[in-house]
């Protein structure tokens, strides 16, 4: 399936300025001017970040007791949200790197947004393991650095693997994002004036669009794709091992790595759709983000939802089949215990609702997709909540069973994390083109040259 041919011709027309194009104008349009709704949204996001920051300062000063932890549930919403955001961060790399390697050209229109989402989601996610520490100020203990006292870290601990996995993933994502941006920054540079121009000039790294530059650029994208591809699989596998390596019934399962990766892609795509639908509408990018893209993403969602459904079923099956009472009780109480609401939300939102995507009409029905993806995001958050909280609350020593109740402080930080993410995304929208202009052009030229027969 290819973009409509009329759009191709239009976008390459150059009515106003030399070396400019319709695509440049359309896609750069959001970065110009003052849109009040935009600034209202940004203001709200910044306020949300500030309130969360205040709450976090308070929590750091007073102690983690202001969060809802109760013995024996020592991890709560912070870790839930950490896994949630790390999961969100998967779609970007998947779209950019894996689909790039597979030459799935349709990705070109959505990859920038997805990459940005990845970077900001990882930045958001990385905060949570830090702010859930009992002593934030001892964060550097988790990093292996040479010191006189020969204090070293425990390489057996999955939490340490996390440190490496997340920092690696964050650096690769940022690199990927930035390298992809360079040609577009150059476009922005050419169109900007004053201070803006100076900044863009620095960021554009002297991009002139020469042949050797393009060659180097496409090579680095290719190589970065090669580097990033295994990371898509490894990061969430490692995050899943935070749980799978433990002895907690409900966590200690070999299926966790593929289960978490599929879940991450699933949740990530849902978030991409949730973001691109309003962006497309607000910035009138319908021309570039077409039904075609949304349908492809819907298919991915359907696939990963089904994998998740399989993983859920497999977990329950293994719990039963193992014959281990601890596991059986843990899973039984997941579905019918104190947290049954979360569990059934998770199953309904993640497995049952997405099955509607078998219907082609719904795959291109954007309002439907938008609502469905909201549910999926909620469902994915609940998935992590269920895994973490229910398992911890019903462990081996039944006399030590307990309950976790989310506290106002955690809710505020949770809300703050969405604001933090939105803040970065909104800033990104104002500064950089949300669609990779050069790649869209590439796609369109390709379409024109090959008469739409892809």
């Amino acid at each position, binding site marked *: 399936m290819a973009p409509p041919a009329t759009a191709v011709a239009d976008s390459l027309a150059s009515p106003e300025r030399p070396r400019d194009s319709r695509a440049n104008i359309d896609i750069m349009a959001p970065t110009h001017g003052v849109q009040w709704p935009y600034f209202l949204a940004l203001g709200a996001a910044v306020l949300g970040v500030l309130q969360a920051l205040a709450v976090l*300062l308070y929590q750091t000063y007073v102690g983690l007791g202001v969060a809802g932890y109760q013995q024996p549930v020592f991890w709560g919403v912070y870790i839930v949200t950490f896994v949630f955001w790390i999961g969100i961060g998967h779609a970007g790399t998947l779209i950019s790197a894996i689909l790039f390697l597979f030459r799935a050209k349709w990705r070109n229109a959505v990859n920038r947004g997805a990459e940005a989402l990845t970077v900001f989601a990882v930045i958001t996610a990385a905060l949570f393991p830090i702010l859930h520490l009992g*002593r934030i100020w001892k964060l550097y203990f988790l990093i292996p650095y040479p010191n006189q006292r020969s204090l070293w870290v425990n390489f057996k601990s999955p939490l340490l693997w996390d440190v490496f996995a997340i920092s690696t993933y964050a650096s690769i994502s940022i690199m990927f994002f930035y390298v992809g941006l360079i040609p577009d920054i150059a476009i922005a540079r050419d169109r900007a004036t004053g201070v803006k121009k100076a900044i863009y000039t620095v960021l554009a790294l002297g991009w002139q669009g020469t042949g050797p530059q393009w060659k180097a650029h496409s090579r680095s994208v290719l190589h970065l794709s090669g580097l990033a591809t295994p990371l898509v699989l490894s990061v969430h596998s490692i995050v899943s091992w*935070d749980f799978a390596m433990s002895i907690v019934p409900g966590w200690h399962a070999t299926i966790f790595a593929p289960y978490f990766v599929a879940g991450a892609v699933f949740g990530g795509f849902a978030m991409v759709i949730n973001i691109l639908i309003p962006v497309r509408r607000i910035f009138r990018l319908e021309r570039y983000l077409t039904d075609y893209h949304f349908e492809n993403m819907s298919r991915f969602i359907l696939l990963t939802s089904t994998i998740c459904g399989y993983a859920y079923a497999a977990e329950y099956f293994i719990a039963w089949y193992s014959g281990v009472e601890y596991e059986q*009780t843990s899973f039984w109480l997941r579905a019918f215990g104190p947290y049954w609401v979360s569990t059934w939300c998770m199953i309904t939102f993640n497995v049952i609702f997405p099955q509607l995507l078998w219907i082609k009409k719904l795959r291109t029905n954007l309002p439907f997709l938008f609502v469905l993806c909201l549910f999926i995001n909620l469902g994915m958050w609940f998935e992590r909540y269920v895994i973490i909280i229910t398992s911890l609350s019903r462990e081996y020593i039944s*006399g030590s069973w307990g309950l976790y109740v989310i506290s106002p402080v955690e809710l505020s930080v949770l809300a703050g994390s969405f604001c933090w993410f939105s803040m970065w995304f909104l800033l990104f929208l104002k500064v950089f083109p949300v669609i990779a202009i050069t790649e869209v052009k590439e796609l369109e030229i390709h379409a024109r040259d090959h008469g739409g027969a892809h």
Partner: protein
Amino acid sequence: MSELDRRDFLKLVGVGAGAAATACAEPVEKLVPYVEQPEAITPGIAVWYASTCTECPAACGLHVRTREGRPIKLEGNPDHPINQGKLCGRGQASLGRTYLPDRYPQPMVRGAGGSLEPSTWDDAMAQLAAKLDSARGRTWILGGTVGPSLGGVIDQFAVAAGANRIVYEPFAHEALRKGTEAVFGVASLPIFDPSQADLIIDLGSDFLSTGLSPTENARQYADARNVNTDKTGGTRMISFGPRLNFTTTSADQWIPAKAGSEAAIAFALAKAVVAAKGTPEGVDAAGIQRFLSGANMAQAATAAGLEPSELSAVAEALLHAKNPVILPPGVAYTGSQATSTVAAVMLANALLGAVGKSLVVPPATGTADAASFADLKVLVAAMKAGRVDVLLIHDSNPVYSLPPELGFTEALGKVGTVVSFASLKDETADSAGLVLPDHTPMESWGDSAPRPGIRSIVQPTVRPLLDTRALGDSLLELGRGLGGAMAEGSFHKVVENNWSDVNWRQALAQGGVFSEVVIEPVGISGDFAGLGYSASSASGKGDFALVAFPHHFLGDGRGAALPWLQEIPDPVTKLQWNSWVEMSFESAKRLDVGFGDVVEVETPSGKIEASVFPRGGIRDDTIAVPIGQGHSVGLYASMEGEGEHGGWIHGPIGAEGQPGVARGANVIALLPATEDEMGGRVWGGAQASVTKTGRFRRLALSQWTDNQRGRELAQSTSLAELAGHGSDHGGGHGAHHDEPPHTFTAAYDADPNQPYRWGMVIDNDRCNGCSACVAACYVENNIPVVGETQAIQHRDMAWIRIERYVGDGDLEGGAARRPVPNREKLGELDIRYIPMPCQQCGAAPCEAVCPTLATYHNKEGLNGMVYNRCAGTRYCANNCVYKVRRFNYFDYGNENFPGMLGLMLNPDVTVRQQGVMEKCTFCVQRIEGARQPAKDEGREIRDGEVKTACQQACPTHAITFGNLRDDASKVVEAGNHPERSYHLLQELNTRPAITYLAQVTRDENEGNH
């Protein structure tokens, strides 16, 4: 970018925290080292003093561990014949009295504004002296039991001031004394020794919890039931009572008799005994017949709600046992015929041959004994009539502990001057006109003579911390001022002079003088005038019999000021910090209430409100409320400090500090101010009605379920299985794995090149759940008390807890958000206690997951915990299968040792910072303490040289600690019972260093030899 962002974030946090920290910097204080070092104090080396515990009348001997002049830990005095080195939870916690922020810092005088204002000793004493002088004959002294020396000074003062003295104890055991007097002619409290009996019929004495000498009795009872040496399982106990109480838990059979039927049962049993044994020569047989004439087995069974056959089976067992003994009801069941009940019990005991063996009647001690309730009524009448000008109150809290119906509080208003000698704030001192604070026991001289042959010294172990003065010294000065013939010198001298018959210094070092004294046997004299049984009707019209029972830790309420006793869960219900109303699930259903629903309990005497705790172990016609809560004064006793000690934020459920608001309800308000036949105070027999209020107040419940779901956490085996072990193993009800998976040798889990692998054996059959170990652990390891708000959130910090399960459990339940223990059944006993410290696993799940190696396996097999290295990821706690790790949610180490409580901290143990994990380390500081001398002497640490705090405290010797690599060690020997030993959750291959020995169910039929 991400790294940079994290750092930026941290900087921001750091700047914020730094700014906050500098804003409240404390003024510079200088540390001044010793210029001349005091003799006997070497910094870093503990000095031990012998003393005596004054928390309860048992008078256990103490060894007070002091460091740099501060007492920091109480342990039992091994030379003391009563407790033999052990100490109960109340004793352990009593150390805190010296350091509580509640103490009066100096004399207080009620000012014009109506509040107590600080004064000076000179002023306050002068003021009192003037009043006393004019109040001759109109002065009364009211106070608790004190030692002989102080008692002597009070008596001298009473003569000098022309005062009347009333010794008042809430639990005065008047009925026990009078009933004993009726039978034997000796008005004293019998000394009970369970080890001398083979069958104990307990009519609700609760002797293991709040009896006359619980620590001693617990040891004797456990020794008498040692399955390792006695294959029959030893002494059996049949316990009566409407409620499954602490002692009943340790019994072999529970007969859930109705509350108030104790008298009927006692008489029925006595009658059966008399019928079988006859009356001895020279005893007024007719008098006994007359005394017992009201008794009737069938009628007693009806009164108790039992089948007559059940009762006659008990009588049968009694007559067939070699050394049976019947224990009279305890405080909770002291009814209107209490003295007659005791008399009947003592008569039966005498005929059964128990007296002189398992029950020894010592000679009467006379005036030092507590007065009866009737005497108190005389005082109150005098007060009401305005005939009391000065009332001196010491060592008691009558405003709290006397029933409001008596009108003591109102009568206080008519007394010219009320003087309190309380060292800690309490309700009585709060309503006094003058407070002359006494020293605390740790600062005082004193003595105690609990029984013939045992004289014990109370010696100060710290210089008085505040401007207080010993009661003895105050009275000596006042008495001299009044021209009375007072003893010479200070009170210290008085005590010393009273001990002039022995080597004073030697006695001080030893803690007293202990000698075996043969107590003259007593014969039945049988003066039963005024006694006898008649079927009585309960007072009040409510649907429920009200059982007001002494709280295991709070006793008569004096323990409520001590935060440890509030926070350590009640062993039976596992509730903390507040009052509760126990009722059966059936009753709760009928009233449409559940756990935490507030109900109003009303009797003709008054009403209270408290939250419901439904349980299986109580009769449908009974409700039970613990005595000891409901204080309206005190940082911990009332709600004054609630919230203050959880950091300065109190969590979502928390309330701000509420001075003057009572913590829970004082059940004494429901009790009538009546007395029994001989003037003793009545605690039982009230009928109460219960109504739902519709409000909810959550109770802090430390353990939500008593169902172990067949997980074999607390295992049990039977005598038959023990006997048949080896030939017919596996026939039991799942107590053991036939082939334990992952067999291992715990001794190997340490560096092979050094001599130690520390390990522990816990004998669940000896554990009675008393939680002395928990208290010892709190004090030894500087464990913070978190308060009710936090306890409700399951954030207690105990490093060792006692889990309580009923039976093997099944897969029911667990789905409720907040379940309550629900497996107790009326008349059934399969209660299993399992103490749970860190298991010091050989393959510890916690160690592998710590990213910073803050928790690690040390060379000697311990799971070390480096607090300084902990960043607080809490993964270790998630991965701990035993759930023994505790997290510092707030800055408990700073906030929760307010005022002088910080002085009580053990300098050998780090005080943990906010945000770090902590856990049991087998008292590693004690191991290190023993290592240095061993190294100096070029030897290894000897077996028994290191005792963990829990082991040291355990009254029943259930805990053995030592080196698993030393084949001759006690711990290896103790664990060498393959028929009972198991490791907790062995199938997980955590290779724990603790071996548990399964509890043994003694078949009830075997009890009836």
